[in-house]
């Protein structure tokens, strides 16, 4: 869906999305990485289970909530990618205040 303006000369790091490994540029957000890797959904909505991808990229819409390193409800557009990050699709409920 999205590509880099210039594919040469970028430093990359390794992370996994839904169990698959990807090389992504250092310094970008998790939401950008998801789009760059051609992932087609990053969460399923709690009400109808329909797929979503990032919508605003600026922390407003909360359509980018994912499970990152085991923690659910992480705002993927506001988080920077890290080496060995594990990123998973979020299923269902998006909560602001969580018990764990």
């Amino acid at each position: 869906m999205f590509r880099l303006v210039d594919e040469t000369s970028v430093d990359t790091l390794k992370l996994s999305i839904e169990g698959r490994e990807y090389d992504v540029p250092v310094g970008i957000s998790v939401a950008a990485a998801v789009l760059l890797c051609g992932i087609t959904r990053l969460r399923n909505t709690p009400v109808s289970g329909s797929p979503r991808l990032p919508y605003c990229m600026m922390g407003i819409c909360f359509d980018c909530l994912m499970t990152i390193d085991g923690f659910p409800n992480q705002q993927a557009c506001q988080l920077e990618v890290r080496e060995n990050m594990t990123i998973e699709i979020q299923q269902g409920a998006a909560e602001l205040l969580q018990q764990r």
Partner: protein
Amino acid sequence: MKDHYQLLVIGAGPAGLAAAAEAARLGLDVALVDEQKAPGGQIYRNVGSIQEPVSTYLGKDYLRGKPLVEEFLQSGATYINSASVWYLDERLETGLLIDGASHFITAERLILATGAQERPMPLPGWQLPGVMTAGAGQILLKSAAMIPSRRVVLAGSGPLLLLIAWQYLQVGVKIGAIIDTTPGSGFSKLLPYLPRALPAFDYLLKGLSFILAIKKAGIPVYKAVADLRAEGHESLESVSFTTGLGDGNKRTEIDMEAETLLLHQGVIPNLRLPLAAGCELEWDALQQSWKIVKDIWGQSSVDQVLVAGDCAGIVGARAGELQGRLCALQAAHQLKKIDLQPRDRAATRIKRSLQRHLSIRPFLDTLYPPAKAYQLPDDETLVCRCEEVNAGQIREAARMGCVGPNQVKAFTRCGMGPCQGCLCGSTVSALIADETGASMEQVGYFRVRPPFKPITLGELANT
């Protein structure tokens, strides 16, 4: 980072950067908080570390951010980056979420400069993967040097849509089409604002140069558009709409393939933090949005809270920067760092320049009003993306006696999700007003309550 400052500024866009730098210069102990990694806000996002050639593609107005960021970094103000404000209440305690831990800060004065968001543009299919805001497309370019890889279509209205189209053209993105949803406002409506707009003629020339570049590039531009829909099963496959041919009646149906659709119909204030702080709102009929009640110094209805830039009412980056400086002067005066006369002397030039940059607004607001169709969408269109509530359910709640957004929320769950109404609030108020015949002031807006960001009890305990 300390737990108390004389002044806390929230938002490192032009307004907040100028406010913090000016306040530090006036001798205040000031900290600036922002959730982005680097200073710049929306317009100057990533300007400090952007690489060639993308920096050139973004244009001269973008690079104007460099000296401002430099001024701030040199000013001695404390900069707290990658910090989301997740808590703020009427006692003005501010909760920051930094790398999984919560911290509380207090201050004698607060300057809120949290900027704008894009006006929601609810239309059938806007929730499909592949549909994003135009601003999101621009953020990917500024912060990740990313562009759509296949056919992208732009739809909506306003100067920012033209700017993004122009920036994409510089990078070499092939734009499939621009679907212009601007309602024809008619020259007669614009005329009264033209004389006032003349001092800021540079804005108009810039807009014109974008339009010419789009024309020259041969991008199809569709006007007099209706029935705009994003279509597809699991993701966007096509965009369909009808377009007028000029004689008013004859309409052509168009259905075009697209992998990415970028929507935009102007920006509105990001009201979350001002509302949480208890600042009073007022309805701006020309801008068709809520704004924060304030005086020329940015003083809000709450004693210790000043507001600057687009979060208080859309003014644009240049005016926002000047408002930030006025806020800093006033805060410094309130905290006894500058007397009345030197404050007023310092403010004279700023105010004059501010007038010039504000003079273009009524003209722009009249030229690019949001289209009715995306403020009062059809019954089946999703309004609340979080809880998946459609316009029909909101209309029904209004008919059953819900007179304001907070009742509609209790009734339908609309606005109850994590975005707390950011993506549905303006539509919900408009739908209720339309259905009940009440004014926007009578209908009002959603209440906002912390937490504003997802937080776990574990993170809270980490303080």
